[in-house]
């Protein structure tokens, strides 16, 4: 400070102050979301190293876009940037692995009438590995719904904000994602229980 600083050209000093303020806002708004951001990116890309690159890139974008943040929901705002960064990144780097399906036809499972649902019992017994595999196998647009709702615990409104689709679309995609995931878990559960014993789970079978 003192003479020397005052004598210098003030615009530079002002720019430094602005930068410092931006950095502080970044630490308040973006930094607390990094866990969620990495989680989302990991589920979208399927691996940790790519996820870190994407979040790093998204954090840089967020820093530059801070002025456009309206101060309402920092988490949804940051996750939206992460998601867009991930989609761009994936189409560029791994086009062969991205399945951007718009095949939104219902998974075609007959509803069953009857008391306590037997499928529910099978689904509830799915182990962590099966759930992981099942989610990873979902098409991207359905997978992100499950991840944002069941893992990141966002509300429908927030998911709509992150993915840029209307709430009605969020609801129907989420429902479809659940249907597909339920089918996978049921089949895996039945396989684990052995053929012919579809609804009776035998404990401890490898």
């Amino acid at each position, binding site marked *: 400070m003192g003479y020397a600083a005052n004598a210098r050209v003030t615009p530079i000093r002002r720019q430094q102050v602005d930068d410092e303020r931006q*950095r502080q806002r970044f630490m308040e708004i973006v930094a607390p979301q990094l866990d969620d951001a990495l989680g989302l990116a990991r589920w979208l890309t399927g691996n940790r190293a790519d996820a870190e690159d994407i979040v*790093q890139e998204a954090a840089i974008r967020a820093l530059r876009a801070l002025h456009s943040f309206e101060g309402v929901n920092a988490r949804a705002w940051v996750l939206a940037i992460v998601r867009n960064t991930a989609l761009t990144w994936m189409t560029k780097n791994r086009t062969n692995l991205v399945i951007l399906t718009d095949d939104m036809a219902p998974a075609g499972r007959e509803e069953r009438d009857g008391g*306590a649902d037997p499928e529910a019992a099978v689904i509830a017994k799915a182990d962590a590995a099966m759930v992981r595999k099942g989610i990873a196998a979902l098409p991207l647009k359905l997978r992100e719904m499950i991840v944002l709702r069941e893992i990141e615990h966002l509300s429908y409104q927030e998911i709509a904000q992150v993915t840029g689709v209307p709430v009605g679309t969020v609801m129907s995609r989420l429902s479809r994602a659940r249907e597909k995931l339920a089918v996978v878990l049921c089949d895996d559960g039945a396989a684990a229980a052995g053929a012919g014993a579809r609804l009776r789970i035998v404990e401890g079978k490898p």
Partner: protein
Amino acid sequence: MTASDPRDDILLVEAYCDGELDAAAALALERRLEAEPRLKAHQDRVMALKAAVAGASLREEAGADARQRILAAALGSGVHSRPGADGPANATARRTGGQRFSMRQLAAAVVAASVIASGTTAFIMGRAPPTSGIAAVIAGHQRALLAASPFDVASSDRHTVKPWFDAKLAISPKVPDLAAAGFQLAGGRVDIVGGKAVPVLVYKRREHLISVAAVPQSGARAAGTNEEHSSRDGFVTETWPGQGFAYTAVSDIPAAELEAFCDAWRTAAATQ
């Protein structure tokens, strides 16, 4: 029995499972769940699925290393760099050695980041333990200022705010309307003071917020509460005893203005 689209019913059940229905819609659906096995079966499946995903504990911590790398890269990138210069393709290069900035800059950025982070934490935590009365009220006010919204219920109508507290906490502090005195009611929230959930009223004065925490008092303690003024970290507080509550007001407005606010509040509360 149902004229509605079965597909909509499914979405309705899932919205119910996700806690997205309001009380009236939830009640209506609960009645239908009892009557319609088809919906009940779907609810069972969705709840089972939610339980399976939750049980798989798929949330992960970023890890300190990853956090620091990301923060250093973002803060080291500079706010005013040309957008687009950092294409996504460069991200990998940056991580694997093609750094665009020197290690010195990186180290400086990490140090700056941790200083800011710890400074923020210290600011939020305050110097006194946050469970002690006034310090807790100030901490609650500071936290509310940092949060996305400084109140849980936003309303300038005391007939909305008061019932909200009744329903939420089963306690009902006075909620005087001070708009005439220039203090607009903005809403209410719940803070933790001394380990207990207490109602906090939020008023607005120009762009400043005033929080009034109403800490329920048992008979003996109520008598021991005196009127008290203090200031800490740039926030002024005033505490006074009331019927069944000890009230503490916190704000960053000038002390004289807060005093005027508290006077107006007490006058209005007495006649309410």
